[in-house]
Every structure is written in C-alpha cells, then in structure tokens.
C-alpha cells in the first residue's frame, strides 16, 4: 500500500515538473493520489512540503476519495499566479497576509461560511474569504556559541544598545531578511516600521554593522546555529522551533516590547474548480487546534486566543485594508528606498 502510493507520487511529481510552463516558479510539487476514485484538490501554497505533508495525509485519511495536488511557490509567485495569470487552483495557502488580503479585496477570493470558520476569532478571518489557521511570531534567534553565559537582549532598545556598544564584535555577524526578496520579511519590516520608531534605528545600526541579508529563515537559523552569525532578527518563529528539535546551538527570543505575529491563511480563489473539497480543507485547517498530533508534526501553531492573553507583547497582524498600504507601488518603492538607505550604507 505504502510503496505504490509513494511511487505514484514521485512519478506524478516528475511529470508535472517537466511539463509545467507558468509565469511563476514552482519550487516543489507533489501529487497525493486518493485510495478511492474521486476528486482532485489542487492547492497552491507557500508552505514547504515537509511542513505540510502530515496535514495533507491526515486530511486524506478523513477524505479518502480526495487526491491532492500540492504546489509550493514563493509568496510573490502565488500572488502572480492567481492575480495575473488566473491560474486555476482550488485553495491558496500563504504566509503573506497582505497579499492574501489584496487577493480578497480585489475580488479573487470566494465567500465561505461554516461553523468551523465562524468559530474563528474575529481577527483570524476577513470578509469570510481569508481564513487564518496558524499564528507565527517573528522572533530573534541568537547563537549559543556567541552569547555563552551572557544575557541576550530582551527588547529592541537593548538590542540597539548592545550593537552600538560593541560594533566590532557584531560586524558582519548579524542577519535579517532581505525585504526586497522575501514577502514575509517585507511584511514584518513594514509592520515593525508602523509599530516602533526603534525599527529604523535598528536598521541603521544593522546597516552600519554590515548585516547579512537572507532570503529565508532556514539559512539564517543554520548560520546562527553554526555560530557564523551572532543573531538573526525577524526569523519565522514556527520554523525556528521546528529546527530547534533537530539542531541546537541557538536560542529563540520573543522580544518583550512587541512581537509581530503573522497569520498563515487560506482562501478559495474564484477560479477554483473543486470548491467543495477546498471548503472541507478550510474546515480541516481552521480546526487544527483539535489535532495536537498535526501541530507537533508540522510545527505550525494553531490559532489560539489564549496565547495573546498570556503574552500581551504578542500582536497579531490585523487584517483589513491597512495591509494594502505597503503593497502600493509608490509606498513600496519609498519603503524600500528607506530600507536600502539604512541597511546598505556601503
């Protein structure tokens, strides 16, 4: 049973990869055949296969007649695929709340209401079109090797002070997102700029210290764990936690002044062909809370209102037209100009 299923998956993956020709770059693709004849659910997602596979398989356990096509792309490519190309997917899952919001605002998402979606807190859904199913903080990751017994900074002011105090120690050894390349990095940076004046000071200091710029959390964590970097700012917390299970050498710090919490969301594009299964998947995702096994397997923290009550520094990013502001071309150009001015001083 297991073997033919795996073989079928690989074959399907290979054929799809070779025949595909889109205006967007497919990073990974996998076909999960159904055990019974039935429908195909086509998902476009920004979540890596290894993160999402347990969820997909659990979904198929409950819906054995649904085959799943899972395509992994970058956040910007997901936007491009649906917004510009009208690509036909049944479900779009993305960590870029702003882009998902824009898709819904500009009329690319379908309405869906069910008891499961109604049970979500208000801040975890928008227009009954965008549904959040994880809450993932942006954290500071520090190297054990570098800090040793020294207390790492606990808020942004302390971080700025520390960097200013001993620039030579940190020069070239701090990392953060290249917001020009990473949608998540851009979202966190723009939210930071709204939240605190300290952000621009921090960027200024990091620029002076020749911060390394990264595309992805994975590489930043790898370099912090290996001791190449002393610390990395605005790392995707869920990813860091999952890495901590398999590597050590670093610590995760949720800064105490505030922590931006990104919500991973799903929406059903208007071009969806298999709406029923997409809705079933949304119900399944929004009830992730009831499946601790999957939360553990995927390291995706489910929506839980209590977390925000327990730690008031946590701030879920708010849905709404405000998220469209930093997607404005002039605004984005201006923001990136500022950002480059701060970070790329040499």
């Amino acid at each position, binding site marked *: 049973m297991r073997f033919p299923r795996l073989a079928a998956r690989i074959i399907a993956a290979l054929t799809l990869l070779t025949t595909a020709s889109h205006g967007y770059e497919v990073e990974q693709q996998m076909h999960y055949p159904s055990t019974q004849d039935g429908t195909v659910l086509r998902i476009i997602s920004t979540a890596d296969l290894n993160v999402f596979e347990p969820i997909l398989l659990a979904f198929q356990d409950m819906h054995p007649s649904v085959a799943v096509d899972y395509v992994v792309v970058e956040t910007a490519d997901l936007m491009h695929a649906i917004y510009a190309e009208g690509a036909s997917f049944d479900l779009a899952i993305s960590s870029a709340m702003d882009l998902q919001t824009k898709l*819904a*605002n*500009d*009329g690319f998402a379908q309405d869906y209401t069910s008891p499961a979606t109604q049970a979500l807190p208000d801040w975890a859904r*928008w*227009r009954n079109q965008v549904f959040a199913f994880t809450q993932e903080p942006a954290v500071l990751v520090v190297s054990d090797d570098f800090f040793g017994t020294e207390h790492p900074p606990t808020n942004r002011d302390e971080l700025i002070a520390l960097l200013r105090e001993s620039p030579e120690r940190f020069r070239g050894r701090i990392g953060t997102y290249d917001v020009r390349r990473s949608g998540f990095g851009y979202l966190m940076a723009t939210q930071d700029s*709204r939240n605190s004046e300290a952000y621009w000071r921090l960027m200024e200091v990091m620029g002076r210290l020749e911060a390394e710029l990264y595309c992805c959390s994975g590489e930043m964590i790898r370099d912090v764990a290996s001791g190449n970097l002393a610390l990395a700012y605005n790392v995707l917390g869920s990813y860091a936690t999952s890495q901590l299970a398999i590597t050590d050498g670093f610590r995760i710090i949720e800064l105490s002044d505030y922590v931006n919490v990104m919500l991973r969301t799903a929406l059903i594009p208007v071009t969806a062909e298999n709406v029923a299964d997409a809705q079933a998947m949304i119900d399944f995702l929004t009830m992730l809370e009831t499946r601790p096994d999957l939360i553990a397997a995927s390291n995706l923290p489910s929506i839980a209102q209590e977390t925000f009550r327990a730690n008031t520094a946590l701030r879920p990013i*708010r*849905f*709404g*037209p*405000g998220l*469209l*502001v*930093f997607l*404005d*071309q*002039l*605004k984005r150009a*201006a923001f990136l100009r500022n950002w480059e001015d701060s970070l790329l001083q040499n």
Partner: protein
Amino acid sequence: MTATKMHPTASIRQNLFYQLAGVAAILSFAFFLIVRGVAEQAAEMTQDGILSASATAIADALRSEGGAVVLDLPYSALSMLGTLNEDRVFYRIYTDQQTLTGYPDLPLPDERPRRGEPVFETHEFRGDEVRAVSVMRPVGASGAARNVIVTVAQTRLGLEATSRTITTTATGVAAGFFLAATGLSLWAASAALAPIERLTSAVARRGPYDLRPVTADTPTELVPLVDALNSFMTRLRASLSRTEDFIAEAAHRVRTPLATVRTQAEVTHRKLNKPEHRLAIREMIRAIDESSRSAGQMLDHAMVKFRTDTLASDQLDMRALIDEVCDRLGATADLKDIDIIRDLPDDPIPIHGDGILLQATLQNLLDNAIKYSPEDSRITVSVTPNDALWVSITDEGRGFGDADLTRLKTRYTRGANVGDIVGSGLGLTIADEVASAHGGRIDIKPNENGAGACVSLVLPRE
C-alpha cells in the same frame, strides 16, 4: 310589551377601536419609515465621512519632489476604512492624464471635484456597488501646481448589512408599537364606553314599571340624552298615574250611585206583583251587579297596576294570607252550602311580597271557585311546597269545558261556561299580573280527581 324594532348601526366601541388602531398603524408605519430613513442616512453619512477623511488624509500626504508628485500613502488612510466593516477598498491617485498609483481602472468622478469640495458617487466596480469620494488637491509651487485627484472607494456590503439590521429593528419596533397601541386602543375604547355601559345596565336593571328618573353617574356628553329620557319618563309616569286615577275615580263614581240604584231596584222588586215587571227589575238588578262588579274589578286592576310599579317586598306568611281570604269569603260560601277545606301546613309559610296584592289574587281565585261551583260542594285550598310554592284552589264545579285556557287570563275574557253568573273577566288578569310581578305565574288546569277546576298561584321559592 312588544319590542320596537331598532336599527343597530356599527358599534361605537368597534368604530373607536378601528379608528385608533388605524391611527396607530399609520403612526407605526411613519415611525418605521422615519427610523429607517434617519438610520440609513446616518449610516451613509458615516461611510461618506470616513471615505472623505481617508481621501483627505491621502491628499494631505501628497507632495512635490523635484517637480514630480510623490505620495507616501498613510497607513491610517486605508486602515480607517476597515474599522467599521470588512468592505473592499479601492483608491486611485490621478494627475496629468495618468494614474500615479492605485487601481487604474477605478472610474474618475464624472464631475471634476473642486478644492475643498469632495464629490461623492455611487457606481459599480469589479462586481460590487461602491461608494466613491474624490477630492482635488493642487500639489507643487503655486505657479507650477498640478491638480491631483484622489479617489477612494469602498463597497457597500457593510452598509447593506447595517441597513438590513436597521430595517429589521425598525420593523420590530414599529410592530411592537402598533401592537401596544392597538392594545391600548382596545382598553381606551372600553374605558371610554364604560360610563355608557354603567348607565345602560342601570336602566336595564329596572323593573318594567320603574319610571323613576335615572340618577346614575352620567358623562357630560350623555347628560342631554339622560335628561331627555328622564323627562320622557316623568311625562309617561304622570300620564300613567293620571289614567289610573281616572279609572279609580270613574269606578268609584260609578259604583256608589249603582249601589243606590240597586237598593232602590230591590225595594221596587219586592213591591211589584206582575211577573213580567219583576223579571224586568231582576234583569235590571243583574245589569247593575255586572256594572258594579266590573267597576270593582277595574278599580282593583288599577290598584294592581299601580302597586306593581313599585312592588313592596314585605315579610309575609302565606298561611295567614290564605286563612284571611278564606275567612272573608266564608260567608259567601256558606250561602251556597260550600265547604272550604283548608289543607295547610301547621307552620307559617314565609314569603316576600305585597300582601294586599297577594290577597287580591287569592280572593279572585277563591271567588271564581265559589262562583263556578254548585251548591253543597267542596273547595280545597292546599299548599304544596315543591321547587316552587303552589297554592292550589280545587273545586268540584263545572270546570273549563273546552275553553282555551291561556286566553282566560287576558282582560275582559270570560269563558263560555259562565251562564248567568255575574263577572267582568278581569279576575284571572289581576291574579296573573300579581303573580308575574312576584316572579311567579297562575296555573290553570282541570281538577285531576273528577269534575271541577284547579287553579294555582305558583310563586318561586325564597
């Protein structure tokens, strides 16, 4: 008494109720329209207000850099639009025939906005109705300023949802108002009519001959009606008592001279020898007796009419009344060798009523029994207390034959069996009227044990 035909028109209560309910319905509907109108206008004004605040915030952020218009879109300008609802938001910044940023397909306002005067429009955009506001702002040095149009649009789904809620609420409130007002109308109509009802029942409670003026509390509006009624009754009473007085007076005036004439006739009769002369005088005496009896009965009848008007309700003993009447007529009975058997209980029989009238009744019944019985017979006066009190007078006389028993009680009606017995046909009429006034009746039937009649006064049990 024959009921005169009335033509009842629609009831005042109903009319009043329908009118008040109608007014309530109109007011409720007006209330509904006003509440909905005002609330929807308020909701629209709220959206318009936020939209123009948003557009103004964007316009304020416009500036000129090196001759080019630049914009640092304020976060709050769009985020404020998400505070009230989850409507879709579109914007467009337009200058020099081109779109600076935003949604290039968002329509420009039909009418160019002037400075400080935003233009509001409602139209379709991307599948939904949107409310759009446009403001104009010159940007740059005063000589080379360029006019920039900022348009911000928002769908109206939230507004529609609000409007639905308002409509539901307004409907509910209006319906509640209507129901409450209708209930109150019902109450008000009843309350307004209560005095009339009191008056009606005060008048209806009266006995058939009660012609006293109405003194119940009377609402001002009804005072003329009640006054008219009272004055009518006064006149009626006066007219009735005049008639009775007249009868009594007439009867009295007739009887006295008749008595004289009769005495003279008898004296004359004794003196006459010729049989044809004696016969003529006897017939004359008989006619006199008839007239005298009629006058006496008419007088009694008038008395009955008068006394039943305001019927006395004295505590009486029926046994004593019967005894007295039997005693009084004993002599007459003895003349015919008639034996009056009193089959009475030992104890008194308490009743309420007018003693004089009841005596007159019993006297008439016993008088009939004696009158229509042969010599040397028996008359039984018995009392049977059943569910009602039966005072029965049974004789062994000629009975009623095949006379119509119900008709005997009407005035001046005599049976075919009377022969040459003197009478006026008023006796049973008097008895019947007295019985009715006491809530009872006169029962007429043949004697069950052989020949004769059995006539009973039936009175309700106390």
